[in-house]
């Protein structure tokens, strides 16, 4: 199924008041960056302990 117009409207409304640019994409970028840093730290941790 595809998203209905009402669902997309509700989804897009979340980012309208954000003070950040392109907040609808930026939140995913922030998650990916932090997740990669955590994974890298976990690799380092495995080799140290």
């Amino acid at each position, binding site marked *: *199924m*595809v*998203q*209905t117009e*009402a*669902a997309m409207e*509700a*989804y897009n409304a*979340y*980012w*309208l*008041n*954000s*003070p*950040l640019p392109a*907040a609808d994409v*930026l*939140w*995913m970028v*922030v*998650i*990916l960056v*932090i*997740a990669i840093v*955590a*994974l890298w*730290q*976990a*690799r380092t*941790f*495995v080799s*140290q*302990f």
Partner: protein
Amino acid sequence: MDLQLLKKQEHQRRVRKGFMWALFCAILWGLWYIPGTVVWVLNPFDEMYAEIAATNGDGMSLIITAVLITAFNALTVILALMVWNGVLGKFGEMKRTLKEFNPCSKWFFLASIFGGPMAILGSFIAMGFVGGAFAAVAALMYPVVGSILASKWYGEKISKRAFAGIVFIIFGGITIFGGGLLTEIGAGNVVWIGYIGGLMAAVGWGIEGAIAGKGLDIAEPDVGLTLRFLGENIIWWVIAVPILAILGFPMFKYALMVFEPLTMLVLVFAGITFGFCYVTWYKSFPLIGVGRGQGIGNLYGLFAVVFIALFFGDIPDWTILVGGALCLIGSSIMFSEDTSQLESLRGE
């Protein structure tokens, strides 16, 4: 070099890492509220909510929809944890731990009952009935439950400083619950089930932490946590979802409609944040103890409010801000504790 000095340095390094993992947990947990909130308005969940609400009312509809969202959240968490364990080369260890049910895996399956049906579902209920910021901070009381249980059950040491931190968190929690409740009573709109959801989250995660602390005495956190989510997936997909379908709710109809790119994308990001936050939470327990790990992990409330303000532009109510600040002070008191106090996490 002096052996005692080396031992002290190694101990300090372990404590620093423990606090680092707890902080990662807090950041990722706070971020989870972004996909955890927006997923509700996407198909098929919005249509599922509308269909059930038309026949069973809004309250029931919210809980049933939350079950399906939580089940999918558990599924994407397992995918994220497979990546995590794959990168760390832990699949062999996973097989070994799974085989040892009685000494190891049983604790993680037990943890999944309190963390899944109780805490995560409760958090979704709080989010749906009251709001994302409320749900994020309502569960802040969970370290109180976790540290008391860990202390009574297997003698984890709770210092005066850690106790002071807990007291601040209790007052923070009271401010959050009481303030929000007073505001809603004034408006004549008390959504009790939202507050019950918040309570379920606090008690559920506290009990889960204490149980996990016991299991982590003999098992690895990365693997233990994956088994805990394996247990949660079984609870949702083998027990809860089929039972609700038998009771006449359209669970499988909407479960099969979830394969839509945007919905899947949001669920995958919910899985990454939740899976990674949980695994870092578990990693902190053997290094700094359940009470402190949960105390620092508690900063998720603050991060959630910050991320919600940044990405949604929502300005939180003053009671949530005051309560969140008190909880933050409590967590900071634990964080700044002298590390020599942590040399042995258990009582003699």
